């Protein structure tokens, strides 16, 4: 892998950038691999990378039905944080956050992770009580979290409407300073490049159409580019988790919904943190390009169509103007939707399944992007050792029969 740096840029500038190598190869699928990963998004590519990096397993194919990183990796609002309520969530999301903190250097690809902080606003007594519980739990789990008063909020994020006369006045906020944003596409590309360099085959335009089993054991996958033999199939197909699982004969407790997002036209910097409000329902940050990027709740209907509409956007706009009155004259430049797989407890499924050699990583709902490195790291461990890492053990599929749910509806920041 040719190292990226200011020096390599200078060197390549001399010959007009004619000699940059490919970021990843485009190999033909082989007949067999040790591990086949279904889904070439951030989580799948991270899984492949950590399989190679941490476990020395390089006979790995990542099969992507479209273009790499084109699902929810390309469609999210790029927020990274680990301020989750329950111990189990705090552990895996904070592992992820710690990996984010060194990711650009680890991958030698600038994923532009910026710890500009994540503010979660409280607007009434109920919110405050919840916020206080959350801050305490997060702090006692060893994760950073602090309370900001309205005056402190105003100082930290001046364009927020902190007037006590607002319809839902801001009474306080939690701030996770280590949270922030990253450049979503770069995460997929960086992992792809690093995994490819370690021998992983990344195969685009290769849709998995079936999973072959012998008894209770996986033996291969059928794809639009032929059959591939393997003893381990790992599904990381956000938006289609239950579709892929059905190929292995599994029915999952997952509902798929559209989740919409949009960006404004680029403007000069006005917002240097991430602001989330559950009550005035919206979350927003400003990208390095200057666009305000925002999202809100899921569309109520179930769908696999990545289609946007107007009504959710209209509510989102009313909310954003309530929080930031000065955005009213800005303009929406692009809107889109992704499909999110949501478990009943708003926590993911990461682990083994009743089908031997079939592993699932999915159901991240509206918040999978932030988990990308940690999810891939723990999932790679699970695949390599055929047993879950303690980080993802609580997120096993069995919890839906045992009832040991990890209810993170409150932390999702998005109404389900």
């Amino acid at each position, binding site marked *: 892998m040719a190292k990226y740096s200011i020096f390599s840029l200078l060197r390549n500038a001399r010959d*007009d950038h004619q000699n940059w190598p490919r970021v990843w190869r485009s190999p033909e699928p082989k007949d067999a691999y040790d591990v086949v990963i279904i889904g070439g998004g951030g989580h799948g590519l991270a899984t492949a990378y950590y399989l190679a990096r941490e476990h020395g397993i390089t006979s790995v194919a990542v099969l992507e039905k479209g273009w790499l990183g084109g699902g929810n990796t390309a469609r999210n609002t790029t927020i990274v944080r680990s301020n989750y309520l329950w111990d189990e969530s705090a552990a895996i999301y904070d592992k992820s956050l710690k990996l984010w903190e060194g990711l650009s250097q680890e991958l030698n690809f*600038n994923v532009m992770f910026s710890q500009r902080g994540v503010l979660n606003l409280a607007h009434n007594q109920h919110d405050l009580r919840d916020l206080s519980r959350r801050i305490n739990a997060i702090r006692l789990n060893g994760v950073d979290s602090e309370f900001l008063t309205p005056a402190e909020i105003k100082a930290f994020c001046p364009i927020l409407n902190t007037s006590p006369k607002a319809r839902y006045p801001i009474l306080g906020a939690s701030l996770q300073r280590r949270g922030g944003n990253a450049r979503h596409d770069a995460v997929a590309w960086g992992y792809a490049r690093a995994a490819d360099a370690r021998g992983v085959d990344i195969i685009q335009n290769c849709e998995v159409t079936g999973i072959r089993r012998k008894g209770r054991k996986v033996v291969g996958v059928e794809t639009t580019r032929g059959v591939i033999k393997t003893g381990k199939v790992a599904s990381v197909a956000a938006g289609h988790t239950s579709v892929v699982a059905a190929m292995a004969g599994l029915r999952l407790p997952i509902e798929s919904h559209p989740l919409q997002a949009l960006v404004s036209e680029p403007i000069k910097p006005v917002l240097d943190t991430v602001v989330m409000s559950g009550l005035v329902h919206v979350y927003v940050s400003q990208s390095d390009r200057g666009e305000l990027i925002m999202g809100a709740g899921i569309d109520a209907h179930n769908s696999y169509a990545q289609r946007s*509409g*107007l009504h959710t956007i209209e509510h989102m*706009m009313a909310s954003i103007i309530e929080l930031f009155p000065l955005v009213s004259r800005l303009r929406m430049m692009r809107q889109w939707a992704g499909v999110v797989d949501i478990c009943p407890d708003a926590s993911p499924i990461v682990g083994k399944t009743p089908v031997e050699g079939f592993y699932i990583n999915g159901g991240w709902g509206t918040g999978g992007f932030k988990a990308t490195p940690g999810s891939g790291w723990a999932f790679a461990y699970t695949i390599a050792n055929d047993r879950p890492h303690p980080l993802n053990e609580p997120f096993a599929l069995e919890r839906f029969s045992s009832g040991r749910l990890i209810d993170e509806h409150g932390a999702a920041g998005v109404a389900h």
Partner: protein
Amino acid sequence: MSRQVNRRPEGGRIDRDRSLGFTFNGRRYTGFAGDTLASALLANGVMLVGRSFKFHRPRGIFSCGAEEPNAIVQLGAGARTEPNLRATQIELFEGLEAASVNCWPSVEFDAGAVSDWFSRLMPAGFYYKTFMWPARFWPQYEYVIRHAAGLGRAPAEKDPDRYEKFHVHCDVLVAGGGPAGLAAAFAAGRSGARVILADEHSEFGGALLGLGAGIGGKPAIEWVESTVGKLRGMAEVRLLPRSTVFGYYDHNDLGIAERVTDHLGPAAPPGPPRQRLWKVRAKQVVLAAGAHERPLVFADNDRPGVMLASAAQAYVNRYAVRPGERAVVVTNNDSAYQVALDLDDAGVKVAALVDLRPAPEGPLADALRDRGIDVLGGRAVVATSGGRRVDAVEVGRLNDDADRIVGGTRRINCDLVCVSGGWNPAVHLFSQSRGKLRFDAAGACFTPGDSYQAERSAGACNGAFRLADCLAQGLAAGAAAARDAGFRKGRAPAAPKAPEPEAAPLRAVWRIPLPGDRARGAKQFVDLQHDVTAADVALAAREGYAAVEHLKRYTTTGMGTDQGKTSNVNALGILGQVTGTDIAGVGATTFRPPYTPVGYGLLAGRDVDHLFDPARRTPMHAWHESVGAVFEDVGQWKRAWYYPRGAESMRAAVDRECLAVRNSVGIVDASTLGKIDVQGADALELLNRVYTNAWDTLKPGRCRYGLMLGEDGMLFDDGVTSCLGENHYHMTTTTGGAERVLAWLEQWLQTEWPRLKVYLTSVTTHWAVAAIQGPNARRLLAELCDDVDLGAFPFMSWRDGTVAGIPARIFRVSFSGELSYEINVPSSLGVALWQALMTAGARYGITPYGTEAMLVLRAEKGYVVVGHDTDGTVTPQDLGMDWIVSKKKKDFLGKRSFARSDTARPDRKHLVGLLTEDPREVVPEGSQIVEEVRPAPPMPMGGHVTSSYWSAALGRSIAMALLVNGRNRHGETVTISLPDRNVRAAVTKPVFYDPEGEKLRA
């Protein structure tokens, strides 16, 4: 004030009697009514209007419409300023102020232009490869990046304007009012169908406004005026000028942004909204959005003075402006020939027409030659020169494969370069509608393929570039749309004649090759706004970002505010070339709404300020206000939180209110409680299914408390339901849960239990509820009510009666543990009831109390509040409420989950009481109980404090908590970890006051 040096002496669709003064970058100019800011600037000789995003290169006006990539301005100042508008779309008004964006100190001398010197270090995606060392410097790097990025500035103040929405249905929506759209609206309208014709410009006519073409033997503009006149005469046709159809969503749901007063500037009357959002549900849609001309990609094709040929034509014809003095026209197709003729007519010297095609023939070429204009075939402009404006082009000969320049180049002086690389149908709305695009090799463009929704395309957006075809397609599409919408008479009228010479095929050359001696370093721009060059596209492909979406994201082509209207197809063409596939194989990216950017304020409409989420107030709200109550938001409700007297603190007020209830009588406004009227033959069955306890034995006149669970067995809501009569119940829910419970019940009834005959009606706001609580409650009630036997009115029952002369329904239920009556009267009589109770209660010192005292009182009794002491992970058993979970009922919602191993686990978190060692210590709610105290986190947690108050009645603090295995830990001491210290507390039963309930049943 400068003269309009470039204004033609006559002609154009401008009103020369209405001169308008405006300023640009602080300088004053004049234009005429009918001008855009762009045409007025050109009239005044201003070509340099902006700087590019990345390299800050000087840029001029490039187009005359929505596709403009360069002329981005900040309009206005103060609260009404608006960033990133296109000068080509701003209608001029008196007093308009605009300024260039993203340049400092001025557009002429922009310090940011130094970045152009380092442009070789900044190819596509360079930032992914650097700024990584040292890691801790990233925030500084990023600060610079962020401040370099962004275009205009957000206003610093609140938007003073108002926006409105219309929701309408129509039979046929026609998007675009050019020749095809007008024809379609006319054909549909004459069938009697309800037609909406929307066009983004100030007047209908589209491209015809800028063309000298003829229809039916007359100037085209006469056909436009006559057609618009006919449409105005049709009662069912609605014409929407200045209205952009920006989004095409599912089920033929379309959004239209109408600019109602923007073009009036400060003269806008106060009445109408600034903009209006039309949400249209159309039976049929005709897309007639026209086409955008495509630039050609050659070296330094970004200099001010380089302009789309059709734009130059529109400026001379429609706006009577000469955009230059000496032009070179460069084209790969026939359409630019007429441009050269029109420029010549307008007095612009046409130095040459350069045609990429080898041997230009035909009447248009002859006409040019007849006027002495050089027609240079088989050649291309390979580069331009100039500083802040183009001063010459270099023309070279293309080889047969168009991949090399043969021989030397020739320099032609000019200050205007009109480019035409063919036309891109505006397929944006079609693509948004989910239609699939196909590549049309003849036009070298993407055209609509199969439709997905009830929609058809007509005219240029359908790949028909000849006027006669546009008219014919428009008429046919309009008629067919009306027919499909159920109007049988929808037959297409005959199309008028619009003679045009036969067009020769275009020659698609996606990138003009550089002369051999300059193969490196020249900037051939593909995306003008984002400074993406052909070399960037090639670099992306070389590195493997060859999927169209990767190309777009890696190079940022088409991600600017113009959304790539002039750049996308060229980028795809070049990508196809360098990857050895062709553009058809490369495919196109998905078009996402909106077509052009849409205002946030417009989308929010009236849902701002107090209408953002209208506050709900109880009938007695004004009374609470009048006595100085402090309110809190509970869901959408404003509830009285406490009633301070004078300078009384919250704590003192709440203590006083609590003691009044415990010692005499208090009154609380309970109107917000959710109330659902349940009726029907299966009403009882529904209660049995949704509540955990059994309801068969509940007789009319009696009330019962119930818990509702989710399917997971976790507490969902609670409340008292009363039997009003056979098959008729009055259900109450928590205040916050009212809508949620109703929706939940409806969901079950409509999706799972459709056979149950039950009818639910929300009656929350039908009733005003005043609850009087305390030992003197009965005495007080007796004074105002003589038709209910209060002696034979036991706890958990209800009676109809008259209170203070008002017909009332009285429930003897309690949330305070005291003797209590909840008096329900019709909302309109709530204040009268309240005042009567206050008057009669004066002798008992009746005390109004708020939600805070209510919470303290219930906590003293250990009553839980759903969502306060529970969080969706708590079962009835966890709360010690096994008594209310029926063992006999065969089933109820949540029952099955009790059998799950984790739900049945004996050591789950249980509700407990906590008494702090220091009785004065009130720990904050949400504090965590740690199982092991360590000097620093992480520390294992065993639970958290759900409720915590000062109890005036007990003279100490009380708290409730959810604690691991708590039920078996009574008597133990636990540690509560606060951020700055630890607090120790004893675990107790969660009942602190009158545990036997004697007062309740008194």
